[in-house]
């Protein structure tokens, strides 16, 4: 009875280890070429945890592209860009058209027209830019 219980216990532990992805300890580090990034002053990969690209893709897919395309886009980014897309996706500027002022309020239209003429903004193509 006792041996049978301990056998069950061992089997459970082995199964648990399998589930958790544990394996028997091997050599602490595998011999590998030193990558070029390690020669940079601040290898970013060592400073912070690796960005989860699946999470980046999820955020992009919520903005109207297919999950496959979102995955392709997320995987093609550098680590720094992926971090940006993960942490600041809502605030990153998305640039589109320059003439989309139609829906703007008249007040905004007039202000922009004047600032355009003064050369502080560059919204309306029909405004002759001030050249000094």
């Amino acid at each position: 009875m006792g041996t049978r219980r301990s056998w069950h216990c061992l089997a459970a532990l082995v199964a648990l280890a399998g589930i958790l992805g544990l394996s028997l300890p091997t050599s602490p580090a595998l011999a590998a070429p030193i990558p070029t990034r390690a020669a940079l002053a601040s290898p970013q990969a060592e400073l912070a945890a690796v960005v989860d690209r699946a999470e980046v893709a999820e955020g992009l897919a919520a903005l109207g592209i297919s999950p496959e395309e979102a995955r392709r886009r997320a995987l093609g980014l550098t680590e720094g860009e992926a971090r940006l897309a993960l942490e600041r996706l809502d605030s990153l500027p998305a640039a589109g058209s320059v003439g989309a002022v139609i829906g703007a309020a008249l007040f905004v239209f007039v202000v922009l027209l004047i600032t355009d003429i003064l050369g502080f903004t560059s919204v309306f193509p029909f405004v002759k830019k001030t050249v000094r």
Partner: protein
Amino acid sequence: MLGPAPLWAAAVAVVLGGCGSVLSTLRGSDLPHRAAVAGVPAPRQAEDHCGPAALSALLTWAGRPETPESLVPLVYLPGRSGTLAVDLAREVRARGLLAYPVAPLLPALLAEVAAGNPALVLEQRGLDVAPFWHFGVLTGYDLGRGTVVLHAGAGVPEEVAVDTFRRTWARAEGWALLALPPGRLPAAEDPAGILGALVDLEELGQSAAAAPGYEAYHARWPADWRGPFGLGNARWALGDLAGAESAFRRAAAAAPARPEPSNNLALLARADGRGEEARTLARGAVEAALALGLDPAPFRATLEEVGREP
């Protein structure tokens, strides 16, 4: 409702006018008085598609012609009715081009144009209360006329006052990106930034495009061991073991105190059946790492590996 607008604009003018004209500073610098990059198309953009239009113009200049329409599914984000800058950088690299972010300083940007490198630029053409984000390609400038030339979706080149562009560009945090063909480097004296851009290219599976870049880097900064070191890794990834070895040897000669070139040379020597040489190199790498105070673990792993009987 309309009454306060001119007053408000006048107040804005006073605040911004306080910055003074950037033009006199630029005229006094050693920038050429005018520059124009040829070979950049000026496509007319479809609604919301300034990103694909600007990208297609720059890619075409760089020898990777694409239409704006073919780029829409790759960079446009319907949920944001626009394109993110990171998506443009990715498509530049995906075509084996070096994606280099220019420093957010107008003289640095114009210096690239003067060197013949057009730049993808992000502008915020409106005001903070009514933002209008816009991508375009900066292809030229004329300090005499006080203008820059943008290919910004109008179908024809657009001439904008330098002072206006300085403001709209600064409002977009001075974002500018070069897309350079293999082996061509930015004009900027920025070894760290250029090396970082080369590593980004190499890590995204573009070793064939990164290799000539590392060679150009080595030709420009011959004392820097990281140029030939990157070249060695890029050649190794391409399966050119003999070429990788000669590059790593150049790196080791440029910086005998660094452990990284010896580590990689040790693994190549072992793969070539030169066990004794591999062990000597690996031992040297561990000692060099300890002397420099680097984490010796990866170098010890190599020593252990090459120390085993094959």
